[in-house]
């Protein structure tokens, strides 16, 4: 029973924090968008399209961060069997998938003007694509197993194996990409970003981070509720 008290206390916490989290997120987003869309200068060679970067890059960062979050939560779930951990992991997945998709979408939107094509199998793009697949697989597992306890363990294993796999993929894809001479590699970004661009980028990064945390909290709450509902159904079955 003490185990279950835990989520309950956590729910209270969420309820307290959530409004502030949303407020912070919205403010940061507002500032970030203002800086990136109005203040930031347009790139001398990329023109206005450079502004896509401000939605694209942070999205990519979040996509990676979310997976890390998921993997850590899964590790905790496996090692300490903490009920909240697998709830957190499960909740992180769809959000991470969305950020990944956003990075892919904005990326290819950007790619059209830059490369003249929506998509190239450049190393980073490919690894990002595989990341999306990893997210899909993880989510599918949760879908496919009904018993939450069992689903949690299996999903955790999937997440961890994927986590080991991710850097290997990044490494292999980079090797692969230098192997062939792709028709149109594009040196994405540059080592030195002009501060006028860097500041809005960082602000947007912060905004995305806040957004991720907020969404995560909300999703965790929803998941806890869903489980309570399921248990009530099971309980009703016993009431006869």
């Amino acid at each position: 029973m003490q185990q279950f008290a835990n989520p309950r206390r956590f729910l209270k916490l969420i309820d307290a924090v959530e409004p502030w989290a949303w407020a912070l997120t919205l403010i940061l987003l507002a500032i970030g968008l203002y800086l990136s869309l109005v203040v930031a200068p347009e790139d001398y060679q990329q023109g206005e399209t450079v502004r896509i970067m401000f939605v694209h890059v942070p999205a990519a960062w979040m996509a990676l961060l979310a997976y890390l979050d998921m993997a850590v939560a899964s590790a905790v779930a496996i090692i300490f069997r903490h009920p909240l951990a697998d709830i957190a992991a499960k909740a992180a997945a769809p959000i991470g998938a969305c950020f990944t998709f956003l990075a892919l979408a904005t990326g290819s939107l950007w790619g059209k003007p830059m490369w003249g094509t929506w998509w190239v199998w450049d190393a980073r793009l490919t690894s990002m694509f595989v990341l999306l697949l990893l997210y899909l697989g993880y989510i599918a597992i949760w879908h496919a197993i009904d018993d939450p306890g069992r689903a949690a363990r299996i999903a955790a294993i999937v997440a961890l194996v994927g986590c080991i796999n991710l850097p290997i993929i990044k490494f292999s894809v980079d090797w692969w990409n230098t192997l062939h001479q792709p028709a149109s590699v594009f040196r994405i970004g540059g080592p030195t970003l002009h501060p006028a661009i860097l500041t809005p980028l960082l602000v947007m990064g912060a905004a995305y981070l806040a957004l991720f945390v907020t969404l995560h909290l909300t999703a965790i709450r929803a998941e806890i509720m869903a489980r309570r509902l399921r248990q009530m159904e099971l309980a009703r079955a016993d009431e006869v």
Partner: protein
Amino acid sequence: MTALAAIVARDLRLALRQGGGAGIALGFFLTVLVLIPLGIGPDVALLARIAPGTLWIALLLSVLLSADRIFEPDHDDGSLEIMTLGPVPLELIVLAKAAAHWLATALPMAVAAPFFGLLLNLDPALFLPLGLAMLLASLALSLLASLVAAVTVGLKRGGLLLSILTLPLYVPALIFGVAASAGDETLSGSRPAALLILLALVLLALAIAPFAGAAALRAHLR
């Protein structure tokens, strides 16, 4: 009639419950697509050139991978036996199962394929013809898949066996499908003809699959 509707409804619900229905099919489609450039290199021009063929092969394989679940579960849990006691002949049941498979697996993939084509720099001019051809072909594929699924039902280790039996049946659909969505101008004239032939293939499958499938199931049950 309600009997058949019940089967389709149930199979769709099951597909949805067991891992996101169409989503999973699309996911597989994507995973196959990512293999291609990794296998043969990221050269945009090359990829664009073989894009339609790649999409077609990915479609065939996805349908294939989902095929062995058409009758296997019902056979294993005894549902199939009870279905022979129903008001509708086994032929129609095979048809219903094929329809469910098409809706849950083949159709979503056929619809999504052209968009996935973007990843292979598919020539946008081919969107429509490809989509159309795949829509038609997917019907034939689902019908043939359920025919072979009926033939291999209950033989464990069906996956590969089923493929060997199915792929040859898919060859005509593949050939005319590719023709109906052919890139280079010289062929684009023959597209309408190819589409018509695809239609003919669908009708043929529609005529054969239910009867052959039902016969196979009866043989397995006795």
